[in-house]
């Protein structure tokens, strides 16, 4: 089956990328925080940041740092809000089904 996400159909962007899977840029993150999406979990739902195939392993630490900087909260506090959902890597349906 061909994998063709929304991201691969888009024009490349010039701004720094925070989330590679969902192609979310730094200015988009900063703007969302200023609009009031000021926790990691709200940003995930609003921008889809961290919700692609890597499940946030690359981008969530970056996101947390941007969020800490923008809100003046400590990095540790922001990191604590991050929730994870299984499975931690993509695994096909037929593997879950078993034989």
């Amino acid at each position: 089956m061909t994998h063709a996400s929304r991201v691969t159909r888009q024009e490349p962007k010039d701004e720094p990328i925070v989330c590679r899977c969902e192609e979310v840029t730094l200015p988009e993150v900063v703007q969302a925080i200023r609009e009031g999406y000021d926790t990691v979990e709200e940003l995930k739902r609003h921008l889809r940041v961290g919700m692609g195939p890597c499940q946030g392993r690359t981008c969530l630490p970056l996101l947390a740092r941007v969020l800490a900087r923008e809100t003046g909260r400590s990095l540790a506090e922001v990191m604590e809000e991050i929730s994870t959902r299984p499975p931690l890597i993509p695994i096909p349906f037929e593997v879950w089904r078993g034989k």
Partner: protein
Amino acid sequence: MRRTADVVIIGAGVTGAALAYELARRGIRNVVVLERRFPCSGATGRCGGGIRQQFTTTHNIRLAMESVEHYGTLAEELGVDIEFIQGGYLILAETEEEREAQRKAVALQNDLGLPSRLLTPEEAAEILPLLDITTIKSATYCPTDGHANPFRVVEGYLRRARELGVVLEKFTEVVDLEPRGERIVEVRTSRGPISPGLVVNAAGAWSGEISRMAGVELPNKPVRHEIAITEPVEFFMEVMVISIHNGIYFSQTMEGQIIGGIGLPDERPGYNLSSSLRFLRTYSRELLRYVPALGQLSVLRQWAGLYDVTPDAQPILGPTPGLENFIQANGYSGHGFMIAPAVARHLADYIEKGVKSEILEKLSLERFKEEIRGEAFVVG
């Protein structure tokens, strides 16, 4: 924080958000929405996003039909792309009994003006060519059913509501309600008290706990339902599929991801929100039985949400007997997202004019004094 409000709405899921907007639109703008975490952090943000009208009770069908009409114009009204796709719902049946239930359901739906129809397995395969019909006895299909993005819907409602003056207080938990005589006179929150005109209980699975603070027992029970989403694939299904045989549901989002779940029949009531391997195995097995071609598609993420289930699987709407300024807006039993636009209008009309619609009369808390026929198709 405001210390008085004409209306205090407890819960910023789709019901609270839609009601806040509908009130503000009618000029009732001193409205405070209290949310324990953040908008969409409960069932709305965890649901599959399905919008179905093929129900088996008159009220559920009517509310869903009204809502589909509203969903059709909501993007324009709110100025937000809510990713509404009217690709229809295909409901599968595998036994003679289930086929008979489908025949009756379609007859009732058609009487109410819904264009649903009973299909042969071959006709079902025409709608979804990847469907394996080996075990399928019959199906029903309604082309005007569909799905939308719950986050965009709630964001849209709240943004417009706030532009009109509604205040959203997130990370603000209701810790107590103080009834005096026939009214709730104070809402106590983790950030201080508010004197309310009206209090709306739109707390989803926590509605029972909220209600108990005012000394009112609801028959609702929280029941976990698990769900999973895959990597994106090329768009191949406009239709949303559910089965009354096993309770599975699945659809494809605008992003191309397959989102779906299945109810586990032995799930016990409670606030368990953990993810189980048993769910993922059951869901994968049943999904691949219907669409074997998805075997190599990878699951990206699974999570759980809580259905707020009533004894007849229909919502509890309107004022509480004995506490007239305490409005119930809960008990959706897994169908809150799909009927929220209509529910919000019925409740906002009542709050504005004091006149109950027929649906509010029928779906009040008082009905549990009598025996009533419930919704039979409790799936996504």
